[in-house]
């Protein structure tokens, strides 16, 4: 009987303890997230040092047992009293905030929660499809050239033997020296098969002319241009998985003619902390650190030694064309994907997407002419509706004046424009030469 009571008491005690531990951990988690998380990660140094087993670290370092609690409440006071705390205060130039409101039990709860988080096992390189690309280009062009040369030699040798035999035969028949050259032999053969040769040469000539003209059509067409870049930047990860807006990195797109490449400080807004999970990623991110002059050791520090990243421009327009991004994006309300495609799916470096791929994207104006040609531009200007007039509610005022003038000056012209129920860019002067060429 007594034994039973004892076991019940013991069991309930264990239960209480477990519940208590859970309560403490939950309290610690809440406090950690509210007070510490912005600067202190659990297993990795960031703005502040990592917190995992920090109490043990301090004791091993020779600090007094109380020092770490004083530190959280007021680190300057702690640094004055304890030599170990003094060394900790030199860890990084950013001073820690003081938390005088935290009690000793609460600080312990935070550390209990932090210590209960298992260390992350070093991630083995993930075999994701955008990391490991199997090189499958097939044999190179030189391989085929070599094969062609070998075949030519064989054909040459065989025909030489055949001709020698044939000459010998003719000689034995006629009795005189017989040495018909290749061209003479070919001519004889062609004369004997006049019709066939004539037809074949006609087909070849016509085909060459047609091919030549088709090739002329590819002049000035940059579809599928995909220059190699100093860093193989995956848009899928940044714009896709992590959901960063295009305009955050290409931030001059709303203000300037060019969309702009992000300066390295924009990269560093995230990459100060993110240094890559796999070795491939780490190698790539080291390029950013070299460019920004960032030394990731410890708290990390900028050394001031910067080195520009030389990106290669992908979407190039000729010098005689004026194109303004802010006009199209802010005033015209054109989405980036209308011209650049869905970059959240672009695994490799940026590429000029052919018009057929752009047309597959939902919401795009469907066009026929090749990307980045003049036909492509004016085709869109002829189709795209100007939303910002008095025609509908989406009014940011930019086109009010031109709509007003159309209404006041020539009502019949405006009525003509409105026949199809919309006012296009073309009708507001989007097909004027001087809009883009001057």
């Amino acid at each position, binding site marked *: 009987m007594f034994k039973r009571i004892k076991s019940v008491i013991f069991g309930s005690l264990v239960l209480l303890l477990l519940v208590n531990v859970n309560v403490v951990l939950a309290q610690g988690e809440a406090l950690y997230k509210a007070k510490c998380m912005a600067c202190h990660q659990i297993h990795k140094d960031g703005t502040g040092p990592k917190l995992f087993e920090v109490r043990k670290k301090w004791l091993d370092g020779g600090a007094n047992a109380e020092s770490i609690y004083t530190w959280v409440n007021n680190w300057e006071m702690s640094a004055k009293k304890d030599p170990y705390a003094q060394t900790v205060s030199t860890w990084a130039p*950013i001073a820690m905030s003081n938390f005088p409101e935290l009690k000793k039990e609460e600080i312990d709860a935070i550390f209990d929660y932090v210590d209960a988080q298992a260390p992350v096992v070093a991630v083995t390189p993930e075999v994701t499809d955008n990391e490991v690309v199997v090189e499958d280009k097939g044999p190179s062009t030189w391989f085929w050239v070599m094969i062609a040369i070998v075949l030519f030699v064989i054909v040459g040798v065989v025909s030489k033997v055949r001709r020698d035999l044939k000459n010998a035969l003719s000689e034995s028949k006629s009795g005189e020296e017989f040495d018909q050259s290749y061209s003479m032999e070919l001519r004889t053969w062609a004369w004997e098969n006049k019709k066939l040769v004539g037809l074949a040469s006609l087909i070849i000539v016509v085909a060459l002319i047609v091919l030549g003209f088709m090739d002329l059509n*590819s002049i000035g067409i940059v579809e599928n241009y995909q220059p190699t870049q100093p860093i193989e930047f995956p848009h899928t990860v940044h714009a896709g998985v992590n959901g960063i807006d295009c305009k955050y990195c290409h931030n001059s797109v709303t203000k300037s003619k060019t969309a702009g490449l992000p300066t390295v*400080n924009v990269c560093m807004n995230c990459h100060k902390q993110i240094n890559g999970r796999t070795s491939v990623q780490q190698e790539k991110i080291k390029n950013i650190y070299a460019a920004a002059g960032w030394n990731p050791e410890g708290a990390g520090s900028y050394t001031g030694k910067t080195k520009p990243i030389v990106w290669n421009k992908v979407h190039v327009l000729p010098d005689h064309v004026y194109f303004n991004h802010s006009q199209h994006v802010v005033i015209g309300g054109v989405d980036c994907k209308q011209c650049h495609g869905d970059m959240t799916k672009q695994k490799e470096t940026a590429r000029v997407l052919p018009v057929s791929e752009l047309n597959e994207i939902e919401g795009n104006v469907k066009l026929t002419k090749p990307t980045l040609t003049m036909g492509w531009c004016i085709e869109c200007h002829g189709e795209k509706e100007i939303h910002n007039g008095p025609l509908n509610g989406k009014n940011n005022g930019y086109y009010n004046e031109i709509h007003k003038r159309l209404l006041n000056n020539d009502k019949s012209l405006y009525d003509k424009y409105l026949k199809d129920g919309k006012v296009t860019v073309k009708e507001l002067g989007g097909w004027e030469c001087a809009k883009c060429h001057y």
Partner: protein
Amino acid sequence: MNKLIKLFGKVTLLFGFLWMFNSCSKDPNSAGYEYMPDMYRSPAVEPYVDYGELRGRIQKSVSNKMSVKTPPKYTIPYFGTNKEEVMLMLPYHRKPSSTSAVTHGLVEWDFSTNPQGDYDYQMAAADMNPIKITAENAEIILKKGKDLYSVNCKHCHGEKGDGQGSMVVSGAYVGVPNFVDKIALSDGQMFYSIYYGKGAMGSHAPILNKKEIWNVVHYIRSIQNPEYGKTNFMSTSVTTIVADSTKTTVK
């Protein structure tokens, strides 16, 4: 044998011809044929063009030095003649902390002379939002603020400001604080943090100008308090620090 070589030469020429027809369009590193190559590279300075090699002329001294330059120090961009606008866009009078070259890469800035790291941040509490929000203009200001917030802040701080942006949800980034309940934080300090960066966050001065940052500050207030701006009221944090505002002088 001589004739054989001649024939061989002809055939290779033909093949070479066909090969040439084929090759240009397949190499992703080639932009293809250009109709007038000299019209593609402008002698006038254009952004993102390497002027070290222009029309075959190589000039190492200007390579990657002509475009995307920092404006000369102490120049002020022109923002029209509207006095309020001009005053608003004058350079920010608070200086970055003396340690910010090392911690935030603000290398060539004028640093605060005060040795205390967060002195200017504390002083910034006195700054009031120069864009006055009233019941009439609240809708426009908050819409503008929301647009800017969703482009520049949302991926980390989350749509609701709870620190659960797509970067955090995907596991790429940790340690984004929840600012919904940080009502005590003053407008001026919010501005200072966005402008020069704070903790892990970098400086956003190169991305957003002063007017835009103040707009974002208004929007953050409206996340914290859905009633913000709907009635003519001053947020509590502003009223408490008005007394100190005499100290803010434009240097």
